[in-house]
């Protein structure tokens, strides 16, 4: 008997070189790579075209004002003197307030919905919260006017003035006349608008954390909270941060709801109870009525400025993530 071992000849795919490429091609991988790459590139193309349009159409005001556009505090359509400073301030302040309110609230709710609530209740509630994202801006604005503004003027405002307003340093945030409309009100309305994004995405991400992680922590004697906060949440960190990015972006660009509750005064004030204005709100309010080329150009330049702010904030946030990378996250 021949003791020659019979081996089944597997076809081993070539590992490198042109034959490998052809093999991958035949397998369709290269095409898939190319197709998805193209679509990713479409996003770059769209954004570049957008920036280009903004750049070109703001030519008049850029040449007229130059860099002073950033720190001029006056916005005067009649005398053709335009400055973005009050709106930059308003945008940053309202977005900051919105995130300070929405992130803890949203994350806490997401944790509750993913870790503690029974699955079916969690699904229903989460579904309903997704609906909040569909409520038109205008309706948020109207609700702000009818509910939040009076509440701010009669109850919350005076309360803040009398308590925190007297604390040194921080108190300056809560002083002065209180009309009900202002930065704080706008921030609150924004917070309500962006919290669904945080909850929705964070909850889904928390749900994907493998059971083993939780169980391992509990096996080591951690309480439910410790397991959640020190193991599960860090694992889902990038997804949660992603949802915060979404929320931030929405807060920066929100127009209708903000414009109805912020008081529309082009001024920089320290107090959160004072009226102000944001970039998006100004553009939305004045664009449809603006005639006059310099006026239009300035409005478009405002859009460009907002783009720049978003660019910088995103960059800072990413640096923050990298700096706090301490391991314990999901392996990338």
């Amino acid at each position, binding site marked *: 008997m021949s003791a020659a071992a019979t081996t089944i000849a597997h076809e081993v795919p070539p590992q490198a070189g042109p034959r490998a490429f052809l093999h991958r091609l035949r397998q369709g991988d290269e095409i898939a790579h190319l197709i998805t790459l193209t*679509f990713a590139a479409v996003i770059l193309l769209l954004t570049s075209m957008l920036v280009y349009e903004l750049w070109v159409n703001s030519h008049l005001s850029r040449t007229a004002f130059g860099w002073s556009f950033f720190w001029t505090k006056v916005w005067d359509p009649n005398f053709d003197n335009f400055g973005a400073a009050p709106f930059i301030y308003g945008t940053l302040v309202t977005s900051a307030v919105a995130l300070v309110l929405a992130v803890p609230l949203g994350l806490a709710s997401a944790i509750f919905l993913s870790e503690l609530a029974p699955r079916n209740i969690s699904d229903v509630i989460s579904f309903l919260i997704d609906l*909040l994202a569909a409520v038109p801006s205008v309706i948020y604005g109207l609700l702000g006017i009818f509910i939040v503004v009076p509440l701010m003027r009669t109850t919350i405002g005076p309360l803040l003035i009398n308590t925190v307003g007297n604390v040194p340093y921080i108190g300056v945030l809560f002083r002065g006349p209180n009309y009900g409309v202002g930065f704080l009100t706008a921030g609150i309305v924004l917070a309500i608008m962006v919290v669904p994004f945080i909850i929705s995405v964070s909850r889904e991400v928390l749900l994907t954390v493998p059971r083993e992680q939780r169980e391992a922590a509990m096996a080591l004697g951690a309480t439910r909270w410790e397991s959640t906060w020190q193991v599960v949440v860090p694992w889902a960190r990038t997804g949660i941060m992603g949802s915060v990015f979404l929320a931030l972006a929405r807060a920066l660009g929100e127009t209708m709801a903000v414009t109805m509750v912020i008081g529309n005064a082009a001024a920089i004030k320290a107090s959160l109870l004072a009226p102000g204005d944001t970039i998006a709100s100004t553009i939305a309010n004045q664009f449809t009525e603006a005639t006059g080329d310099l006026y239009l150009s300035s409005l478009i330049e405002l859009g460009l400025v907002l783009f720049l702010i978003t660019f910088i904030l995103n960059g800072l946030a990413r640096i923050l993530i990298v700096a706090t990378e301490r391991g314990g996250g999901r392996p990338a």
Partner: protein
Amino acid sequence: MSSLRIVWRKSLNYVMLTLTGVAAFAVVSVLFLILGYLLWNGGTSLSWNFFTKLPKPVGETGGGMANAIVGSLKLLFLAAVMGLPVGLLAGVYLAEFGGKTFSFIVRYTTDLLNGVPSIVIGIFAYSLVVLPVKHFSALAGGVALGIMVIPITVRSTEEFLRAVPGNMREAAMALGASKWKTIATVVLPAASGGILTGMLLALARVAGETAPLLFTAFGNRFWSQGWGQPIASLPVMIYTYAVAPYDDWHRQAWAAGLVLLALVLVSNLGARFILARSKAV
């Protein structure tokens, strides 16, 4: 371990978990408040007329928003067709194929796009689709909304694709599947729940957008034929009616808000239902 420390940890546990429940309760209460307000103010305006008739001038009863309802559906359809594939495939690229620097740039740019005020996107779509042909159209509105749909879709697609455990992919590859086949038949279905959530969230967001439609879809008091004419939409109607002097129009605005929510609700339900069915099979 000292018993004091255990007591501290246990009470912290209790307190924090309760706080999360409070937070969730607060958010849900706000939601019910909003829904309740809409129902209270708009419920009385909902009638058969609302769903079937065209808008009437102020003072005349019997008007409705039939064209706006159909218009919103058409616009959302366009936005989905144009924006969702881009978002999905770009997300696939970022999660599965991407090179480090290019992916970073794409992600960064997507976040930037998300932050652009909706009116600026509307102006962009205006110069792209309306000015060259000198008339407003449903298509232009669809383009504007489609652009807005992309960022959320990309982010959630990438996030949930990444969440699919590595062993699933390896198992598929061990069975001889090529990379794209693995993605198409194993990874995507596994991540489909999260991805669908992202897509529905994106569509929900643009369903309520007014500003980008003002200069693109424009609005229409009549029925709009095809895709090349101005078209009515619920958010624009809400905007027009809410700032008008007439009580009747205000109530119609609330009713429209309610219908918009209902539309989103139904499409959400429908999509999840279909997904569940296809998964079960």
